[in-house]
C-alpha cells in the first residue's frame, strides 16, 4: 500500500468533447449502422447490447457529474435506435438508411447548438470552453464560424443524399450494408477537415474522407465505369495527398510547428522569401487544388463524376468541395494572409483558368453527368474569386456559394438518378429530348436546378454568384469578375441546351414509348427539398443566408 501511495496522481487532460460532438455523432451512427448490418439476423440482440452499454454509460456520467442533459440525450438516442431496430428488424437497408438520416439530422442539431454558443445566444458554462479558442484538443480542432457553417453544409448534403440513394441503390443492386456507414464516415472526415486547426488533423481528415469516397465511387463494382472511376480517383487522390503531405512536412520544417495559426505567424515573420517556404506553399496549393478540382489538377473530376453512382456524385461534388475549401481557406486566407502577395497572383490565374476551361470543356460534352462534372470545375473557379479577395466578404461569399451549390448539385444529380432508374443507362443529352412533354415535373425540377447553376437572376445560384463577385470587386479584382461573367455566359449555353432539348424538341422517332417514371418517395422528397431550398434562398431568404455567412466568416487565431 505504501508503494501505491507513492505513485503521483495522474493528471487527466480535460478533453473538450463538445467541440467535436458533430463528428462523434456521425462516427457513432456510422459504427452503429455497420454493427447492425454485420450482426445479420441477430441485429435486435446487437441493438439491445448497444442500448445496454449506452444506457449504463449515460447513467454513470449522470451520477458522477450531476449533469442531466447530455446523458439524457445519449440514453434517448440509445433507446431510439433500439426502437427503430425492433420495428424494422426485417428490413436492414431501410433501418440503415433511417439511422444514417437521423445521424445527419442529429449532427445538424448538435452543430446548431454549437452555433448558439458561437453567436452568443446560448450562454452557458460550457459554451466558452470550446468556441473561438485555438487550443482545443491540443490545438487540433477549431470551432469557429467557418467550421460550423461547413459542418452544416456537409450534413445537409448527407441528409439529402440518403433518400436519393435508397431506391437508386436498390435498383442497381448495389445496396450493400456498408453504403450508409461509408457515407457517414466520409461526412465525419469532411466535418473534421472543416474544423481542423492543425496540419496533422488536415491530413488525417483528408484521408478519412478520401478513403471512404474511393470505395463509394467504385461501389457499383460490376460496372466497368464505376471501377474505372474508383481507380482514377484513388491513384490521383493518393498522389495529391502525398504532394500535400510533402508540403505540410516542409511547412513544419520551416516553422517548427504543425499548428496552422502558429505556422502562419512564423511564416509571416520570415525576413526573406525562402526557397523551402515557397516550395511548401506551392505543394499545398497543388494538394488542395486536386481535392477542390481546380484546373490544372482537375483531370480526375469528369471521369470520377461520370462513373460513380449518381447520388454519390452529387454528394462528392457538393460536400467534398465544401470541406476542402474550408480547410484551404483556413490555411491560406486564415493563416497565410500576411503572405498574400505571394499566393494571390497564383490563385488568380488558377481561378481564371478554372472558370474558362471548365465552361468551355463542358460545352462539348454529350453525357449529362460528365457535363455536370465539368460544370463543377467551373463552379470551383467561381468559388476561388471569393478566395483571392482575402477579406471577410470573400470568406462569407465562399460559404454562401458552397451551401447553395450543395443543393444545386444534389438536386440536379438527383433528377438524373431518377431518370437513370428508368432508362437503366447513363443519360446523354439526346435521351432528354421531349422529356418536358412526358414528365413535366422532373423536367421542370431539372430545369430549375440548371437555371440556378447558370446563375439566372431570381435563382439561388444568382445569389451565390453575386456574393463572390461582390467580394471580388471590393478587393479590386474586377478583371477576374469579368472573366467569371464571360465564363457564366459560356456555361449558360450548355445548361440552356439541356432545357431546350427537354422542352422544345420532340421525342426522337423510332424510340419505343418508355415506361412512366416511378419516383420513389425518398427520391421525390430529396429532390423536392433541394428545390424548395433553392427557391427559398433565391427569392425570399437570401439576406438571411448572407447574414448568417457574414457572422460565420471568422477564423480563430
Amino acid at each position, binding site marked *: 500500500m505504501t508503494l501505491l501511495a507513492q505513485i503521483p496522481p495522474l493528471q487527466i487532460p480535460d478533453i473538450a468533447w463538445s467541440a467535436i460532438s458533430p463528428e462523434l455523432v456521425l462516427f457513432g451512427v456510422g459504427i452503429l449502422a455497420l454493427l447492425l448490418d454485420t450482426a445479420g439476423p441477430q441485429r435486435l440482440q446487437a441493438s439491445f447490447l448497444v442500448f445496454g452499454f449506452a444506457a449504463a454509460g449515460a447513467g454513470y456520467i449522470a451520477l458522477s457529474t450531476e449533469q442531466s442533459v447530455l446523458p439524457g440525450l445519449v440514453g434517448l438516442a440509445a433507446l431510439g435506435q433500439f426502437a427503430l431496430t425492433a420495428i424494422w428488424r426485417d428490413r436492414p437497408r431501410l433501418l440503415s438508411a433511417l439511422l444514417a438520416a437521423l445521424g445527419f439530422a442529429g449532427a445538424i442539431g448538435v452543430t446548431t447548438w454549437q452555433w448558439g454558443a458561437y453567436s452568443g445566444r446560448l450562454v452557458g458554462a460550457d459554451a466558452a470552453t470550446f468556441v473561438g479558442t485555438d487550443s482545443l484538443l491540443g490545438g487540433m480542432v477549431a470551432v469557429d464560424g467557418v467550421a460550423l457553417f461547413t459542418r452544416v453544409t456537409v450534413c445537409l448534403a448527407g441528409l439529402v443524399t440518403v433518400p436519393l440513394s435508397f431506391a437508386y441503390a436498390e435498383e442497381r443492386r448495389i445496396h450493400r450494408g456498408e453504403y450508409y456507414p461509408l457515407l457517414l464516415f466520409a461526412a465525419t472526415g469532411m466535418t473534421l477537415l472543416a474544423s481542423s486547426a492543425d496540419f496533422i488533423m488536415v491530413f488525417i481528415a483528408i484521408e478519412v474522407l478520401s*478513403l471512404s469516397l474511393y470505395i463509394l465511387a467504385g461501389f457499383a463494382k460490376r460496372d466497368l465505369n464505376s471501377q474505372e472511376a474508383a481507380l482514377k480517383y484513388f491513384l490521383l487522390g493518393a498522389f495529391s495527398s502525398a504532394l500535400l503531405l510533402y508540403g505540410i512536412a516542409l511547412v513544419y*520544417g520551416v516553422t*517548427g510547428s504543425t499548428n496552422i495559426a502558429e505556422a502562419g505567424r512564423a511564416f509571416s515573420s520570415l525576413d526573406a522569401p525562402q526557397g523551402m517556404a515557397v516550395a511548401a506553399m506551392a505543394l499545398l496549393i497543388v494538394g488542395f487544388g486536386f481535392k477542390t478540382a481546380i484546373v490544372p489538377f482537375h483531370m480526375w473530376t469528369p471521369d470520377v463524376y461520370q462513373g460513380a453512382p449518381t447520388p454519390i456524385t452529387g454528394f462528392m461534388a457538393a460536400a467534398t468541395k465544401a470541406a476542402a475549401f474550408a480547410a484551404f481557406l483556413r490555411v491560406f486566407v486564415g493563416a497565410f494572409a500576411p503572405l498574400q502577395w505571394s499566393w494571390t497572383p497564383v490563385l488568380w490565374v488558377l481561378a481564371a483558368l478554372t472558370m474558362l476551361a471548365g465552361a468551355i470543356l463542358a460545352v462539348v460534352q454529350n453525357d449529362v453527368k*460528365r457535363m455536370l462534372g465539368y460544370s463543377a470545375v467551373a463552379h470551383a473557379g467561381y468559388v476561388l474569386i471569393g478566395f483571392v479577395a482575402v477579406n471577410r466578404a470573400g470568406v462569407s461569399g465562399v460559404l454562401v456559394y458552397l451551401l447553395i451549390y450543395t443543393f444545386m448539385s444534389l438536386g440536379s444529380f438527383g433528377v438524373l438518378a431518377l431518370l437513370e432508374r428508368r432508362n437503366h443507362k447513363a443519360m446523354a443529352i439526346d435521351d432528354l429530348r421531349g422529356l418536358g412533354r412526358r414528365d413535366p415535373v422532373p423536367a421542370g425540377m431539372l430545369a430549375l436546378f440548371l437555371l440556378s447553376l447558370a446563375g439566372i437572376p431570381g435563382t439561388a445560384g444568382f445569389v451565390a454568384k453575386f456574393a463572390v463577385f461582390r467580394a471580388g470587386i471590393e478587393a479590386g479584382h474586377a478583371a477576374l469578375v469579368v472573366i467569371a461573367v464571360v465564363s457564366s455566359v459560356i456555361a449558360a449555353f450548355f445548361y440552356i441546351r439541356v432545357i431546350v432539348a427537354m422542352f422544345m424538341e420532340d421525342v426522337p422517332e423510332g424510340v419505343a414509348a418508355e415506361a412512366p417514371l416511378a419516383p420513389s418517395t425518398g427520391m421525390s422528397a430529396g429532390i423536392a427539398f433541394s428545390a424548395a431550398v433553392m427557391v427559398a434562398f433565391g427569392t425570399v431568404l437570401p439576406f438571411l443566408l448572407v447574414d448568417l455567412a457574414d457572422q460565420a466568416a471568422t477564423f480563430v487565431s
Partner: protein
Amino acid sequence: MQAAFPLVFAALLFCVGVFGVLSRRNAVLVLMSVELMLAAVTINLVTFGLLAADRGDVVLTGQIFALFVLAIGAAEVGVGLAIILLLYRNRATVNIDDADLMKY
C-alpha cells in the same frame, strides 16, 4: 550528421516517386511509387522533428506525425489494392491506359 543529408535523400526519393507515378502504366507500380513519396515525407518529418527537438520541442511532433503517416499509408494501400484487384478480375489487366472507357 548534417541535417541536409536526410533532407536531400528524402527530396530525391520523393522525385523518384513522382517520376514513377507519371511514367509507369502499371497500377501496382503507380501505387508503389505513391508509397515511395509517403516514405520520403516520413523521412522528412523525422528529420524536422529532430531539428525541432534541438530547438526545444518536447512533444516530438514530427515523430508522432510520421507514425500517423505510416498508419494511414497502410490503410491507403489496403483500399488501393482492393480497387486494383477488382479491376484485374474484370479486365485481366492492371494497365491504367486500358482504363479508358470514359472519354468525351
